[in-house]
């Protein structure tokens, strides 16, 4: 394995850890708001790391550009959808979780 492969593997692995953490939060957190928090924050970083990891190994800059575009779109969609879900939940009168 070349050094770039090692870097890629490290980035991909870290991305995986973030995804895992996000999923764990989705399953274990107590209410909608905290779950959204876990899902969007952790998965955005996770996907970013995976895109970086794949970019290191990419053949051309076009491919890198496409992947970055995908990341940007997922960020945008994720943020918007999280806001929409939180808004509709809030309107239905579901309270924030307090210890």
């Amino acid at each position: 394995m070349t050094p770039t492969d090692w870097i890629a593997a490290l980035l991909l692995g870290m991305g995986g850890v973030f995804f895992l953490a996000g999923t764990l939060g989705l399953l274990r957190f107590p209410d909608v708001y905290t779950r959204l928090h876990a899902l969007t924050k952790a998965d955005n970083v996770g996907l970013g790391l995976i895109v970086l990891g794949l970019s290191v190994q990419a053949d051309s800059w076009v491919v890198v550009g496409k992947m970055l575009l995908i990341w940007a779109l997922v960020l945008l969609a994720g943020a918007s959808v999280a806001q929409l879900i939180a808004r509709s939940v809030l309107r239905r009168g579901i309270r924030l979780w307090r210890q």
Partner: protein
Amino acid sequence: MLLQSGFDVALGLGLLWVAWQALNSSDLFKAIVFFIAFGLLMALAWVRMDAPDIALAEAAIGAGVTGALLLGALARLRASNAGETTMGQAGNGQRRFMASRRLLWIPLLLMAAGLGYAVLSLPGYTPGLSAQVAANLGASGVSNPVTAVLLNFRGYDTLLELVVLLLALLGMWSMAGPAPPPSAEAAAVLDGLSRFLTPLVLLVAAYLLWVGTRAPGGAFQAGSLLGAAGVLLILAGWRANVASTALSLRLVLTAGPGVFVAVAAFSLLMSGQMLKYPPAYAGILILIIEIAATLSIGLTLAGLFLGGRPRGERKSP
């Protein structure tokens, strides 16, 4: 190799599990969300089977548009209090279902086993038509074999398929009445998102249409992206100021099948065989048909999501 077959097994089991959840979740909303997840897993399975064209179509239509249609219908059902079967009202029927459920397992399991045996006992490997497709690809006018089959070799199927789509919209308009008004106020975020995404989606759709002649993509993928953009705009509360009676709207809806039928009639006149393109013009004819089909598919899918005839009295905000 082991890793790959492990992935295939996991994906296969995942498909079955998610399908089971989509079919048997107690909450209908949950079931629909599982169904959308099922569509995405299906797209993954298509990629695993080297069928990126289907993967694109599945993700956009199977999961995206179908999911949006289901959620839209659920919202309207909940408005008329029919979002769930209430056990008390279904009464005897439901109880009879419960009783038959135990017995139903047996014949269905037998059927599944029989079908599985039929699949396993298929005589060897039959080459299918890949050799013929490859041999004639040069004369088809495009270099993506799937597009060649869809728009040239089996173009007649695709012509009828565009009619099926138009028929769905006609059927809906014939029974649905005017579309329900947009929900009271759309979220500002959704509005902003739709304003930002729509041009981008149009760009990607145009790209998919253009690239479809030689790489995965084509009229259906591009059209379903247009449809998705339409769904987003409708969700954001945006309405075009055209009534269902407007000729312009109808012209775009019939553009795909219309151009296709026109090409069929013209080729019938010229060569005696419908949809037989002269090899020199095959590429350009396919492109013309695809452009018209993309517009029709996009508008039809958006129209199906609208859930009724557009009224055209409301100015866009």
